[in-house]
């Protein structure tokens, strides 16, 4: 529950998302994380096992008991599992590892095999192994912190605010607030922070992986290739049909 207002009063009334998003847009990620931790008790960091490890490092400095969860799709790289364990030990924190619904995975594999995504696209598998467990977890939270950054995808993440109402996972009973403290950081800044602070990182990064997801769906990229090209490369680039052109939205504020 928000420390600012009770859920029954719709947290967002007291936690003025639009105002705070503007106020915190140019603040340091650690300041945004502090705001999140100070404002919400029932909050967790989503840690993917990639360079979003900096979120954990920053948060632990503010609150050593911060809640962290990670989605184990069952198809992650060994290196990612090793990092999860390394992070758990390094920071002396618990990481809540979430798993997909067994019956749904079994049904998918029985019907379509273990590599259906190469033929049918990745969405069905991702839906079962990743989005389903994420949604179940988020239904229990008031707020979450993600490692989403604008520079990860010029098409779909160009307008990621540092704080937003999560329009995808909020429900009428649970108004979910989403913090994206790294939104304005570049990959370069992330890596400067990792080196400067001796933050543990995924060994795959040394081998040219930038974005790290499941093992069958992730590959290293070449210099100057965008990180998105290392994911689901056999599929055509996605266009965000449903998007309201962010340029138009950004030009004016109500």
């Amino acid at each position, binding site marked *: 529950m928000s420390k600012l207002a009770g859920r029954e009063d719709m947290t967002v009334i007291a936690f003025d998302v639009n105002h705070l998003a503007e106020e915190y847009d140019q603040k340091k990620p650690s300041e945004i994380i502090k705001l999140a931790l100070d404002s919400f008790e029932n909050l967790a960091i989503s840690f993917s096992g990639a360079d979003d490890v900096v979120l954990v490092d920053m948060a632990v400095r503010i609150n050593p008991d911060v809640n962290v969860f990670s989605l184990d799709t069952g198809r992650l790289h060994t290196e990612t599992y090793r990092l999860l364990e390394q992070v758990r030990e390094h920071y002396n924190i618990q990481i809540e590892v979430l798993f997909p619904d067994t019956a749904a995975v079994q049904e998918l594999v029985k019907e379509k095999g273990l590599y259906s995504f190469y033929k049918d696209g990745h969405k069905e598998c991702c*839906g079962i192994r990743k989005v389903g467990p994420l*949604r179940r977890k988020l239904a229990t939270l008031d707020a979450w912190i993600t490692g989403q950054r604008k520079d*990860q995808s010029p098409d779909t993440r160009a307008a990621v605010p540092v704080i937003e109402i999560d*329009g995808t996972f909020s429900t*009428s009973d649970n108004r979910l607030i989403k913090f994206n403290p790294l939104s304005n950081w570049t990959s370069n800044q992330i890596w400067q922070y990792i080196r400067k602070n001796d933050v543990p990182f995924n060994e795959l990064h040394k081998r040219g992986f930038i974005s790290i997801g499941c093992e069958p769906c992730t590959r290293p990229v070449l210099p100057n290739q965008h990180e998105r090209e290392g994911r689901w490369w056999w599929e055509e680039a996605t266009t965000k049909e*449903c998007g*309201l052109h962010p340029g138009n939205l950004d030009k*004016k*504020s109500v």
Partner: protein
Amino acid sequence: MYITMVKKIRADGTPCRKCTEVEQLLRKETLLDKIDNIVIADERDPESGGMQLARKYNITYAPFFIVESEGKAPVIYTVYFQFVKEVFKTSTTEKQEIDEIMDMNPDIDFI
């Protein structure tokens, strides 16, 4: 309760595919007449009603629904199946809801 649906006209003047699909679903389920107001978010006109509402509620995709009830903060729905389930108590499957979440958020899997 007052329900507003915001649907999009794309920059090339054509209607958004998803918005059309959702409108057809509402019609099929005989729920369209329960929508009090349909507002257009015209990408060619930042001052169109729907674009203003999108800015006001910080929404970046369409369609979306605003449900206003007296004495309560407006509730925004960007997921159609969640909207009909919660507002009209229709039954939906988890798969339908997740499929739609992924359709509307092409990078939701990119986490």
